[in-house]
């Protein structure tokens, strides 16, 4: 599994350290660094490769030009806003995505993994193949189980099941359950007896 370096930029220590302690338990995250000023962020980005920056959207307002410059210099970094109040649409539209401070751990992980996996430099082969978890979800889906039943069986949240389903459809190009069932048979993930 590839390792990921993440920076959290927020001036509130509770948000910074709270997010860090949650992200530290994410399996494929190697290192989470927290900073409280934009200058510190700029400095870090100069010296090491990072895959994601979680940022308080108010910096988009106060450091508009600097941010634009950083984004063009580090085009492979995903910029994700941390939402804890309402920000104008035109501001958050500049980012790659948003997480909400009220997101539970599963939702947060599912969102972050989606952005981390969504790497244009990866080969199409990697993009096509399903992860072990996605294969589990697909197998149960093809056996006719609902999102809730799949969530219970795999001990994950329904939202995570939905995220896995989106990724499966994106990778295979197949959206309907009946189409995915045929796909599962072609890949020998289920036998016709299960169907």
């Amino acid at each position, binding site marked *: 599994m590839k390792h990921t370096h993440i920076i959290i930029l927020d001036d509130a220590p509770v948000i910074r350290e709270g997010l860090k302690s949650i992200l530290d338990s994410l399996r494929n995250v190697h290192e989470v660094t927290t900073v409280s000023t934009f200058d510190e962020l700029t400095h870090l980005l100069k010296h090491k490769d990072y895959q994601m920056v979680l940022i308080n959207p108010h910096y988009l307002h106060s450091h508009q030009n600097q941010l634009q410059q950083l984004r063009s210099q580090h085009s492979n970094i995903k910029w994700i806003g941390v939402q804890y109040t309402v920000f104008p649409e035109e501001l958050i539209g500049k980012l790659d995505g948003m997480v909400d401070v009220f997101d539970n751990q599963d939702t947060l992980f599912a969102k972050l993994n989606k952005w981390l996996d969504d790497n244009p430099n990866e080969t199409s082969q990697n993009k096509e193949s399903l992860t072990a978890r996605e294969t589990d979800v697909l197998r149960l889906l093809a056996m006719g189980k609902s999102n809730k039943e799949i969530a219970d069986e795999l001990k994950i949240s329904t939202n995570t099941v939905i995220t896995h389903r989106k990724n499966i459809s994106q990778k295979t190009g197949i959206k*309907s359950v009946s189409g995915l069932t045929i*796909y599962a048979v072609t890949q020998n993930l289920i036998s016709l007896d299960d169907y």
Partner: protein
Amino acid sequence: MKSKNDVHPDSKLAEIIINHPYIILMLEHFEISLPVQDLSISQICEKYSINKALFIAFTNLYCNKKGIPPLKLTADDALTITRFLATSHRYYSEQIYPEITQLIEQMSLQNNHREMKLVSVFFADYFKEVTAHFDYENQIFHPYVDCLVARDKGTAHKENYMDYSVSQYQDHHDDIEIKLTDLKNLLIKYLPVHNDQLIRRKLLFLLSEVEFDLNIHSKIEELILIPLAIELENKNKVVGK
């Protein structure tokens, strides 16, 4: 500035068809048959009593041009559109889906992989779903549009549809292209080939044709007919509704 490729009232229809053969489908849905001689769009529209602006908007969709310009449409245009859509439904249900069903059956005979049985069931289920979708439009939504047109013209209509509205249709209107795209992906990427290359190619061409037409069909419904029906609904609100 007008570009050479723009469709305008003086454009010769035959020239457009040469470069965009799927326009033939559009003509069939308008119940216009070939040959079209040297007729321009204006002349064809006059001959078949079709609003030129509407005809050009549809032609642009079939020429893969994105976007629909703001159209000033009337109640009569609503009837032209529902007739066009109803004719398209017959093309799907009576021509192309039965052809696809037949090709899948032939493919199953050639290719004895166990997945082929599932493909037959998959398409049969899709055909049933899509037939229900078309029946709903033919029997409920299109007659409702006829009723809106009658209200607009102040003429009588056999039904009054007091309890129905466009918003109910919008709630009911689901995406019928998903499974076709799924089937294309299965045939192109995953289903093992066994003596069926030729049939598979024919099947993929048919699926691409119907997918292309359905995509435009949905755009016509969502971007042209629904806004027009809402406009007619608002203009002639029935008192007490």
